[in-house]
């Protein structure tokens, strides 16, 4: 069984319907995706391409119009299938009247975590998503990013074998984002499986190994993420030195029959700048 797909979508089709059952929108038009155990898989695509719809079907929240979805070989409507899954929805709306600790306790109970372990697990998860100071805050008092992190803790509370994450890093500051991505990497290192969506490749470059690109409800491309991102026949250098170094590199390249396709000053990403600012001592790091 270890080779069997943890997530399997075969010819998955979904047409949204209104209250009276009239078709409104064909969101998925035959999707085939398989995620194997231990893999981290990204579902990419622009807004409205059907990523969230696919995940909702996989969690049993929607039923496919045609085709089938399987979790661990079971239909997602089986609670036993969902028992091995942790889900982070796109918008993390949790019950506003519960505190963070109560929310985790509720979901631990729903996941069948024994009473004796619940408190310790909630404390551990709150620490890992850096909400330990907010344990007694009610959900409606949390900021957007804090809510996301709480929802992530909820997804992790059942020690899932499969993590299903819909836009996991949306709304998080880069500091927290790095920590959250580290959590996902750790999940995969421990042998867990990951299915994550995003419309930003860069966001999940560090965690996903394989990806499917959705467009208008069909899989446009699928494969190894590293392979897909490689620009065939091109290499990248970052050079220290003045204008002379620039010229020398161009000459050397021309001498062997190559061509400099792109050059310019190397910049750090805005996120690196952010990390740099808040991580250096005295840089105003938030407590």
């Amino acid at each position, binding site marked *: 069984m270890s080779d069997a797909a943890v997530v399997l979508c075969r010819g998955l089709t979904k047409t949204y319907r209104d209250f009276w059952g009239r078709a409104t929108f064909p969101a998925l038009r035959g999707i085939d995706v398989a995620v194997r155990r231990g893999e981290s898989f990204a579902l990419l695509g622009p807004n409205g391409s059907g990523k969230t719809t696919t995940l909702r079907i996989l969690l049993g929240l929607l039923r496919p119009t045609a085709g089938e979805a399987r979790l661990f070989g079971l239909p997602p409507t089986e609670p*036993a299938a969902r028992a091995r*899954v942790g*889900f982070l929805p796109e918008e993390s709306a949790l*019950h506003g009247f519960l505190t963070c600790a109560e929310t985790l306790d509720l*979901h631990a109970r*729903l996941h*069948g975590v024994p009473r004796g372990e619940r408190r310790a697990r909630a404390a551990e998860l709150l620490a890992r998503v850096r909400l330990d100071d907010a344990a007694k805050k009610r959900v409606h008092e949390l900021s957007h990013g804090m809510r996301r992190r709480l929802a992530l803790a909820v997804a992790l509370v059942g020690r899932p074998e499969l993590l299903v994450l819909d836009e996991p890093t949306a709304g998080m500051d880069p500091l927290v984002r790095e920590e959250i991505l580290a959590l996902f990497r750790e999940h995969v290192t421990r042998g867990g499986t990951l299915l994550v969506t995003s419309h930003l490749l860069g966001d999940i470059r560090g965690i996903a190994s394989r990806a499917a690109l959705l467009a208008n409800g069909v899989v446009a491309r699928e494969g190894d993420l590293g392979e897909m991102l490689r620009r065939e026949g091109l290499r990248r250098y970052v050079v220290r030195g003045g204008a002379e170094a620039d010229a020398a590199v161009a000459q050397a390249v021309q001498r062997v029959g190559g061509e400099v396709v792109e050059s310019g000053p190397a910049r750090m990403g805005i996120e690196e700048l952010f990390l740099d600012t808040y991580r250096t001592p005295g840089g105003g790091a938030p407590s």
Partner: protein
Amino acid sequence: MTRVAAGPARLLAVAELRVRQAHAARLGWLVLLAFAVGFGAARWTPGTDAAARAAAADRIVFGACAALAVLVAAVPAATALPLDVRGGAARALLAAPVSRLAVVAGGVLGHGVYAALVLVGCVGAAVLGQEVGGLGTRAREAPRGFVVVGPAAAAAVTRAEPELDIAFELPAGALATGQLDVRLRPQAVNEGGELERTSEFRVTLQQPRRPPEADVVVPFTPGRPVRARLPAGGLDHRLPTTLTVHRPEGAWGLRFDAASIEVAGAPRLHLANCLTAAACLVPLLFLVAAGAGAASTRFGTPTAVGVVLAALVLFTGQDVLRDASEYVLRRDARSQAAHAAAHEHGEEDAQEDAHEDDHDHGADVSLLQVGLARGALAVLAAVPPLDVFDRGAEIGAGRVVARGALGRAAVAGAPGVALFVLLGWGLLARREIVPR
């Protein structure tokens, strides 16, 4: 690693969530409203004498508490799931490894328990409010339970047989006040002659080898229950007792139908009696929560609340509906009979016959009305009557609510609760969770 569904634990988790959700809506404040109702009823209920005022106030207060509790069962149960769907919390909840049956049943349990807690709180607060408002334990006679002592079959007290003896065992606590509290429902029998109606008879108590107690003259109106307090200071609780009814003077005799004479048992605390009556209401609260829960699995908040309130109005008005349906059917039967008679009469007149075929059905009730009436009666046959759950009549009459009433209420409520849970499960299982 598979964690197989531990059904009940998850159901309880959902139930607790629903209790917290209802509590977060601050419905607990209704307890203060109940206190105010109790206080106001004790102060301002009109009535001819203290006993009548107390009875009316008790009925008002218990009815108000019951109505509040029914609303507390209905509204949160109708809104919890639609609010979760709209707010998005339903996605995390239903993606968790919990079956939708557990979500529905847990909701019914949570909302039912919460409404029951509010009911108990309201009853307690309302009785306290009455106490503070001046209608306390001392201002009201303690409610008592009545035990039927006879007669076994209808018995007459006539000129020929001027005495009726009823032998019985004293119920526990019957002599708590030094008097025996007796309730009789006599009918009058005219034995001919004068037309004046005598409205008094006499009752005595006696035990073997003891002098009879003083007899008591009881004024009465035929067909109406009367309550008599008989001196019982010399009675021994362990001995068999005989109650004797003496024929009144004049032209009238008495008739006692079977089981029309009752003797009071131990007095109870008014609050305890109200709480027993409240317990009888709990199955109704669960029924309401289950019905509202079923509606909430299909509809959004406003529709679900509307459906539930409409159903409640129909449920409380079921007697009106039943009477109206029976009236329609009676009228239909009468006009059909009249029609048949007219038909026989006009047999020879072929022209009129053809004319009458146009209105083959009777005159003033349409087929649609008859169909609706039949349908309504068929549905109502499956609906438990309101007074199985509502013991407000006993509270008003100062009677102890019998323990058996609790069992009857539970039995009357259970099938409906089960039916609504299954209906809700069926609807929620097919439901797609998309924010509207």
